[in-house]
C-alpha cells in the first residue's frame, strides 16, 4: 500500500501527532487494514470491559459468598488436587501461541513464507487445544458439578452466569481466531500475498494477541481474585 508509507522526515511525537491529524488524506500512516483492525479491537475492548465491569459490580453487590475458584478449577493427576492447574496450563498455552504468532509476523516480513505458514498453523493448533481444554472445563463444571447460569452448589448463583458469559465469549473469540488464522495461513502458502505484501499476518497477529490480552484480565479477575 504505497499511500500508507510514512512521509519522509515526518516528525515523531506530539508534532507528528498534530501533523497526522491535520493531514489532508489520512491520519494513520499504516495500511488501512491494520487501522481497521485496531478500530475493531478498541470496540471489542469495550465489549469485554462491559462484561468485566458488570462482573465487578455483581461481585461487589452479591452478598451470598463467592465460590472458591481455586478449588473449583483444581484438578488431580492421581494425587491430591492441584489448585487452578487447568487454568494455568491454558494460560501457558495461550502465551505460547502468542509467541509463535509474533514469530510468524516477523517471518512474514522476511518473506519466509514456509516458516510463516508453519508458525501460523502452530498458533492455530495451540488455540484449538485451548478451546478443547475449555470444553473439558465446561463439561466438568456442567455435568460433574452441576454449575448452571442460574445456580451452582457452591455459593452465589451469579458465579455461573458470569463464568459462562465471560469465558464463553472469550472462547468464541479464540475459535474465530483459529479459523481466521488457518484461512490466512493457507493464503500465505498459496502465494496470495506475494505481491500485496505480508501485513495481513501482522493484522491477524494483532487479533490473536488481543485474545491473549483479554485472557490475561480474565485470568486475573475471574480466576485469581
Amino acid at each position: 500500500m504505497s499511500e500508507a508509507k510514512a512521509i519522509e522526515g515526518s516528525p515523531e511525537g506530539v508534532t507528528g501527532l498534530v501533523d497526522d491529524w491535520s493531514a489532508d488524506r489520512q491520519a494513520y500512516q499504516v495500511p488501512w487494514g491494520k487501522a481497521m483492525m485496531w478500530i475493531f479491537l478498541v470496540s471489542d475492548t469495550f465489549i469485554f470491559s462491559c462484561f468485566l465491569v458488570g462482573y465487578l459490580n455483581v461481585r461487589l453487590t452479591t452478598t451470598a459468598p463467592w465460590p472458591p475458584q481455586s478449588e473449583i478449577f483444581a484438578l488431580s493427576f492421581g494425587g491430591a488436587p492441584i489448585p487452578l492447574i487447568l487454568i494455568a496450563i491454558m494460560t501457558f498455552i495461550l502465551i505460547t501461541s502468542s509467541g509463535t504468532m509474533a514469530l510468524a509476523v516477523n517471518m512474514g516480513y522476511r518473506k519466509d513464507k514456509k516458516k510463516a505458514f508453519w508458525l501460523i498453523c502452530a498458533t492455530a493448533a495451540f488455540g484449538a487445544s485451548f478451546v478443547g481444554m475449555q470444553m473439558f472445563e465446561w463439561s466438568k463444571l456442567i455435568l460433574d458439578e452441576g454449575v448452571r447460569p442460574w445456580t451452582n452448589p457452591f455459593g452465589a448463583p451469579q458465579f455461573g452466569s458470569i463464568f459462562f458469559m465471560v469465558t464463553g465469549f472469550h472462547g468464541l473469540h479464540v475459535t474465530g481466531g483459529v479459523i481466521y488464522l488457518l484461512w490466512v495461513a493457507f493464503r500465505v502458502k498459496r502465494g496470495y500475498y506475494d505481491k500485496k505484501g505480508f501485513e495481513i499476518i501482522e493484522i491477524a497477529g494483532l487479533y490473536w494477541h488481543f485474545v491473549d490480552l483479554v485472557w490475561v484480565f480474565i485470568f486475573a479477575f475471574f480466576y485469581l481474585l
Partner: protein
Amino acid sequence: MASAEGQQHPLGIYYKIWILLFVLSGFSYAVDYFDVQGGMRWALVILFMFLKAGFIVAIFMHVVWERLALVLTILGPPSVLLVLIGLMTVEGKYAEEARFNYMGHDRNAVALSPSDLHGEGGEHGGDGEH
C-alpha cells in the same frame, strides 16, 4: 518507524518478551498456589496482570513503535473506562452495605468447596483418568 515495510524488529526481543510472559504467568499462578491472601494477593495479581498486558500490547502488538496518532486512538478511549470502574465500585459497595445493613443479608455466610460436597480427598479421586 511504521511504514509500508511494516514492523520489522530483531527476533531477540520477541524471545525475551516471550520468556518474560512465561515468568510473569508463573508468578501469578504462584500467588494462588502458595495461597497468598488479602491485600497482598490483590497487589501481586494486579501488578503481574498489568506487566503482562503492557508487554503484550507494547511489544507483541508493536504499539511502542507506532506513531502517536495511532497510539492515542488505541489507548485513549479505553482509558475512560477507569471512570466507569470507579463509579461501579462506589455504587457496588454502597449496594452491598445496604443489603447487609437493611435487608438482613448474612455478612458471615461461607461458600462451599468441591471437597465439602464430595467428601474428603477432593472431587471424586479418579479425576486424572478423564
